């Protein structure tokens, strides 16, 4: 973590409660950045939550992780990663944003719904034989591929 002085940056134009500008994303990836516009930081938190929901939805769908335990673990990881981000990486004062709870619930329900949608979409793909068919296709027609990609010998015996 950077322990240097916070640099004061000129305020960047920001669409209130919308998609953060590219400058906000570069700040988001910098440790201990200065956030003059609170809405901008909250938008970054929101969109990070959505990204986490997509990534975890894909992982949970492919593994697959079923049952309420999977959902509980998602909630914990989602809340935990963002908590570490804003408290340790960005080192912001939670009281400026209404407390840890306000930051935790920013975009949480939307990310949860997104996670569920991705999980439900992947369920029939993982449960079906799509992956088996794909693997067979690659193995069967691999002999037409350049030598180092040809895996057709795996079909024999």
């Amino acid at each position, binding site marked *: 973590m950077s322990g240097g002085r916070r640099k004061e940056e000129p305020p960047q134009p920001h669409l209130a409660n919308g998609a953060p500008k590219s400058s906000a994303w570069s700040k988001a990836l910098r440790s201990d950045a200065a956030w003059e516009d609170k809405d901008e930081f909250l938008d970054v938190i929101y969109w990070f939550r959505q990204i986490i929901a997509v990534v975890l939805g894909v992982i949970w769908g492919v593994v697959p*992780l079923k049952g309420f335990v999977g959902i509980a673990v998602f909630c914990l990881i989602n809340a935990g990663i963002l908590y570490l981000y804003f408290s340790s990486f960005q080192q912001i004062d939670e009281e400026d944003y209404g407390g840890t709870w306000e930051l935790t619930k920013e975009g949480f329900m939307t990310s949860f719904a997104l996670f569920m949608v991705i999980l439900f979409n992947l369920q029939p793909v993982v449960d079906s034989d799509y992956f088996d068919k794909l693997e067979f296709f690659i193995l069967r027609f691999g002999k037409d591929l350049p030598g180092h990609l040809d895996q057709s010998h795996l079909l024999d015996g």
Partner: protein
Amino acid sequence: MSTMFADTLLIVFISVCTALLAEGITWVLVYRTDKYKRLKAEVEKQSKKLEKKKETITESAGRQQKKKIERQEEKLKNNNRDLSMVRMKSMFAIGFCFTALMGMFNSIFDGRVVAKLPFTPLSYIQGLSHRNLLGEDYTDCSFIFLYILCTMSIRQNIQKMLGLAPSRAATKQAGGFLGPPNPAGKFS
């Protein structure tokens, strides 16, 4: 299974389209009007001002200061009410469209299992997740449950991406007036 996957994707697509349709109708009827733009700017300005004032006020603040804040809150409440009245037009139009659309989709997907849930939902959710489905397998998912989840995730994100979500300060000061539209409802 492939039919179920196709149904799931179709419902996600329907959700995206209906979200865009709702925002499109609202833009035509509300967002592009001068009255709405003026009211929205005014509400946001007042909300931010009021929030700053409330942060700096102390317990020992004079009666005059507190009265000033009350007057500002009243003014903000009136502006929020006017803003809600302006949005009412689009709400009726969208409600009408969506009633027709939902009726159509419900009849298309009636009795069809559109997804498999990775868990058995709680009993009070089963009424929604297993609606109009035969059998006792409560991991079967009905159209309406998946559509509600899709709308909750997709509509809010589309609103934020397009910059059409109301500002947080305005939402906080307004309470129920300017809250984000209920994502679980079929009306906007």
